[in-house]
Every structure is written in C-alpha cells, then in structure tokens.
C-alpha cells in the first residue's frame, strides 16, 4: 500500500467539502473549529491517504498540498501486497 498525506492550508479552505467527495479513501473530514474566515476546514481523519491527489485536483481554493512515499521505499512492502 502506498502511503501519502496531505496538508490543508487551514485559513485558505472555504469548507466546500468537495475534497471529501473526491477522496476514494474516505480520509478527510471537516473540522469542528472554524478558521479565521469563519469556515470549517478540511482535515485528515485517519492515516489511509495514498497521496492520489484527487482532493487537490477538485479543491477550488488550492488549499491542499499532497505528499507521497517515494516508490523506492514503498516497493519494499509491495511484493506482499501483490501476492495478497
């Protein structure tokens, strides 16, 4: 399994929730707190992110930066995953 993560620019997010719909891993949720502009903001709710970039592609406010474990490191776990 490829591991990834996102960083959401809290005060840029407008809480539109489009990233939540776009995420195939269901790993984004809205915050309970409000940001400086009065919006709830997107945040990771678990560690299942694969860094697929889908959330960032649909985010109108370009609030999401996406990271992924490099192929060389993720390869180590890949053979087992391929067998399963």
């Amino acid at each position, binding site marked *: 399994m490829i591991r*990834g*993560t996102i*960083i959401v620019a809290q005060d*840029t997010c*407008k*809480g*539109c*929730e*489009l990233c939540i*719909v*776009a995420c195939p891993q269901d790993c984004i949720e809205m915050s309970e707190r409000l940001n400086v502009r009065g*919006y709830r903001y997107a945040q990771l709710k678990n560690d299942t992110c694969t*860094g697929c*970039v*889908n959330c*960032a*592609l*649909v*985010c*109108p*406010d*370009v609030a*999401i*930066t*996406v*990271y*992924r*474990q*490099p192929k060389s*490191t993720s390869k180590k776990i890949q053979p087992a995953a391929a067998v399963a």
Partner: protein
Amino acid sequence: MTQVIEGMELVYEKPQTMTDAYLHYCPGCGHSVAHRLLMEVVQEMGIQDRTVGVAPVGCSVFAYNYMNIDMQEAAHGRACAVATGVKRVMPDKFIFTYQGDGDLAAIGTAETVHTINRGENILIVFINNGVYGMTGGQMAPTTLIGMKTTTSPYGREQATMGYPLKITEMISVLPGAFYVTRQAVHTAAAVRKTKKAFEKAFEYQKLNRGTCFIEIVSNCPSGWKMTPVESNEWMEKNMFPLYPLGDIKVPTQLN
C-alpha cells in the same frame, strides 16, 4: 513556502503561476479550478512570460489578481475583440480569453462569433454555469428550461424566454474554429481531461490555424442556491444531458 515532510515526496502543490491572493469566489465554485488548471498548463509549458490573458466582466472579473501573468481587463462581452487586438500586435504570445456565459453568450455574442469566424489564433475559455453569477443569479442564455433564477422565478419558460443557447455547437460549424470541446471541473477525472484540453489548445496556438474554444460546464452554488456538493450533483443530472461533455470539433490534420 511549501512544507517539506521527511520521507515523503511532494506530489501536488499550488502552481507558482498563481499569485498568493485569496480567491474571492464562493465556496466550491468551479471558476477557481479553471483558473488553476490554466495556470498549471502555463507553468508546465514554461510560457508564463509569453502568455496574455483577457479577463471578462462577471465573477471572474478579478482573474488578473490570481493569474500571475500579463492580463488585460475587457469591457463586458468584449474579451474576444480585445484578445484579437492583443494577438495581432503580439502574434508570438499565447493569448486566451476567460469568459462566463453572460459575458460570452449574451452581451458578447457578436464579438465571440465574429472573432471565431475570422479564425483568430486565440484560446477562448467559456465558463457555462447557466446564470449571471456576479449580479445575483439572473437568467442567462444558457439557463435550462424550467430552471429558476431571480429573473425567471417560476422557471425558464420556452414560449417567452426561448431555448437554452448551445453556443459551443453553434460556433463549432464556423470554419475559423479549429478545436472545440466541452469539459467540466467537478471531479478529479474531469479536471484531468480539462487540463489536457488546455494543453492541446496552447499547443495548437503555435500552429496558427484558428480559434480554440473550450467550454467548461460549471456550477454556481450561490446562484443556484445549493451547497457545492449538491450543485455538482445537480449539474451532472440536469446540465450534462443538454450540454454533453466531450470534443465537438477536433483538428483532422495537424500540419
């Protein structure tokens, strides 16, 4: 500055061809996605200092605040005429207009049609959200039959208000139109396709063979009085049947 995470590779960040300005668009509005895709393509093609955009009147009137390239504001509906002038003075620059449906298909219909009829070597980006967003969600030429807007409170009625104007199909028959396509930006897959269309359009501009026209069927959560998620679902269900996505005219011969 983009944060560095140890052991992780950066796979997506905001393009440097966008300014740091906070986008004024309503939450979930497709305008910002279209802005970003244009700027991603400009960055990847390395043409930031050779691209000039023409901004419209409408919600995207401030496009020049977000796109870190040279831009010119046009009077309402006149972006294609302005872009014609800019391109003719600087034929080696990449020129695009960015216009809403009120701007392009109502007040600017004449400029749009004649610019394409002359086969001006520019890219026209047309955001079709079915309403006048900026002024409070009035009916546009592209408004669907039955669709409620502030100026069609009982729904658009064909007998008195006419049919939705499929201007993209209309202009596609003009010999001056080189590449005509209809796309969307509401899902990751749609975003990827739209980006490809922008890439093609900028590449085609190097050939000097006519006008490229990219319609983006988009949402207006505020004008439609829906949440962003609802507006995208409504768009798929109601807009796409009348405005189907896909290429309408593709170049048959590239050289």
